[in-house]
């Protein structure tokens, strides 16, 4: 069987190299019974278009961000809640507990998860010299089209964000339609945003996750033994990617500084209000039913356990 997968990641990036390595290994170990073909760089359209194409069978799968996949399985966005995690260590411990639950909710939505990747923390970057919450009010902030959590968070902060497709961000920074956007440091470099954005607030906004999923109907047509091979190979790929992402983000931060980006420390007085903002938008999300009650319970329990243990 051929599994055709679309992704926005440009060809030649570390992510695509690892994906291709996984595909090669699968092809070899299944003796050509399972072939994986990629359409990188967004040539198959935005995530809604890709989802439509999966439904009519032109594609069998895609790589999505949490906000994009939330369109079919709302719980996948729990790691992206603003100011939820304080550091990478918390992320690792919570993910060890909750990844299986996320995979179950993706399966319930009719997709087989081949991998969940931790892309690192997103930071707000801007063409303006942003430091405080007040500075932010005058900014034209991008959010990914359809990303309800990001929209909610910025609206709670009193900002009207501008939703655009990822592929339109670079152009819109150029024309001034937007002047601020959040991304991981590696992401900012991969999409060339660093040529436009000159300031960054040193404050982890949210944790970025990516999902590689395959349509269940196509998945079930593959022989049991071959499915096993694909799952194992891609588990290994995503393990390597997580490790790689950490190195990449650290290197990217250096590269951003080299390219002349100013790293602003958040204004000290804002410390409390940022966290309050995170809490407020979390409550609002729960009220709107953005995540299931079951997942909410599991998440709060996991976080409490991690923080209790640390104390």
């Amino acid at each position, binding site marked *: 069987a051929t599994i055709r997968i679309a992704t926005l990641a*440009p060809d030649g990036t570390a992510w695509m190299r690892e994906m291709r390595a996984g595909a090669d290994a699968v092809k070899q170990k299944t003796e050509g019974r399972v072939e994986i073909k990629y*359409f990188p*760089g*967004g*040539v*198959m*359209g*935005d995530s809604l*278009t890709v989802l*439509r*194409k999966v439904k*009519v*069978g*032109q594609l069998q799968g895609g790589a999505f961000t949490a906000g994009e996949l939330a369109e079919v399985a709302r719980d996948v966005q729990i790691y992206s809640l603003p100011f939820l995690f304080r550091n990478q260590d918390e992320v690792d411990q919570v993910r060890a507990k909750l990844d299986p639950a996320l995979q179950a909710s993706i399966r319930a939505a009719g997709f087989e998860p081949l991998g969940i990747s931790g892309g690192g923390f997103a930071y707000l970057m801007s063409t303006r010299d942003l430091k405080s919450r007040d500075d932010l009010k005058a900014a034209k902030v991008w959010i990914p089209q359809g990303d309800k959590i990001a929209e909610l968070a910025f609206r709670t902060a009193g900002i009207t964000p501008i939703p*655009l*497709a990822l*592929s*339109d961000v*670079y*152009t*819109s920074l*150029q*024309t*001034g*339609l937007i002047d601020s956007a959040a991304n991981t440091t590696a992401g900012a470099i991969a999409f*060339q945003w660093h040529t436009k954005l000159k300031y960054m607030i040193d404050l982890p906004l949210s944790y970025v996750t990516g999902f590689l999923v395959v349509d269940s109907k196509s998945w079930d047509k593959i022989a049991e033994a071959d499915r096993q091979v694909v799952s194992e190979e891609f588990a290994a790929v995503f393990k390597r990617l997580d490790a790689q992402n950490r190195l990449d983000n650290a290197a990217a931060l250096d590269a951003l500084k080299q390219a002349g980006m100013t790293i602003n420390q958040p204004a000290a007085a804002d410390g409390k209000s940022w966290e309050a903002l995170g809490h407020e938008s979390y409550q609002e999300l729960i009220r709107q039913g953005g995540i299931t009650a079951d997942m909410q319970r599991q998440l709060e329990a996991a976080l409490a356990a991690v923080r209790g243990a640390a104390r």
Partner: protein
Amino acid sequence: MTTVLLVLVLLLLALAGAPLFALIAAIALVGFHFAGQDGAVVAIEFYRLADMPALVAIPLFTLAGYLLAESGAPKRLVRVSNALLGWLPGGLAIVAIIACALFTAFTGATGVTIVALGAVLFPALMQARYGERFSLGLLTAAGSLGLILVPSMPLILYGVVAQQFHTTPPVTVDALFRAGVLPCALMVVLLSVYSVWHARRAGVVTGSTSGRELAAALRDAAWEIPLPFVILIGIYTGVLAASEAAAVMALYVLVVTVVIRREIPLRRLPAVLREAMTLVGSILVILGFSLALTNWLIDTGVPERLFDAIKGSIESKTTFLLVLNLFLLVFGMLLEGFPAIVILVPLVLPVALGYGIDPIHLGIIFLANLQLAIFLPPVGLNLFIASLRFGRPVMTLVRASLPFFLILLLAVLIITYWPGLSLALV
């Protein structure tokens, strides 16, 4: 065998006058069918017309163009340029060149330029004794001049099709707008130099200069004069994105022609709106199916295979560019301008990227060649339009436009081999 048969059937249908959108839709549907895909993929791709911010500019610019053409603006444009340049030897010819370039840039039309401006300019050129052959050739050639000048619709269309390939750097419409300015200026200058030389040799009557006429002409066109400057400066400084410039222009022109000048009565407005959107509809429907066609090419990996095949026989970038020029001229002539963009760009762009050609420079090369192909003998469309408009045999127009063709060919070669000219302002 089946492929040959299908191509033959489609060619016959094309000759029978089948609408282009249906032909492209047929290729996409049959193509996806043989690739084992659901025809709904074509509908999914077509729907992406509602997904592209750059496309908002097309109905807005077209509306503005139609309102301007319907108003007295073309006549006022000719009057102002004549007052400015009429005193020069060859001045009237230069007026014609500039007016034709601006008209095409703002309306996106080439054949209509010959029809609309020809009515004013041909008698004027004849009266000033430029000679029939020169006047016919100049107007035929200038019809398509301005295709690469902001805010021409073909530039937007190239940008939209090229964006499907997600190149780095991305092909933005704004960058294309900036890239076309100097190459278009080169064409205008070369044609003007030739016109001055001809005017001297032929002993053309030179108009007199009058400060009073200039002032009157400027006053007459006071509402239109700021327009090109606002658009050019807005886009060049990055204050306005292409679609924003289009909105500013459409709103401004709507207010000036309908409310202030009242040249278009309110009860005539719906008809003009429908006229403009008829053009927009017939173009966007083709574009929608060409998105599906492009997606089929990407889906089946045709561009890669094409590049591999060509790479075997053409090694250097220089040779490739030369072959590209010939290819674009011939197919541009056969496909009559606009269709060439939606059909040829998806095939040519990935190959050209393989040879290291900048996608923005490629856009200018592409449209500069098309501009030439539109009046390339034997079946360049504008030769026939000019033949109808001026009531002369097509062969007369072929002969008359030959020197202009050679001059513009020189310009196209310079544009092709000197990327800096296109990329200096990007």
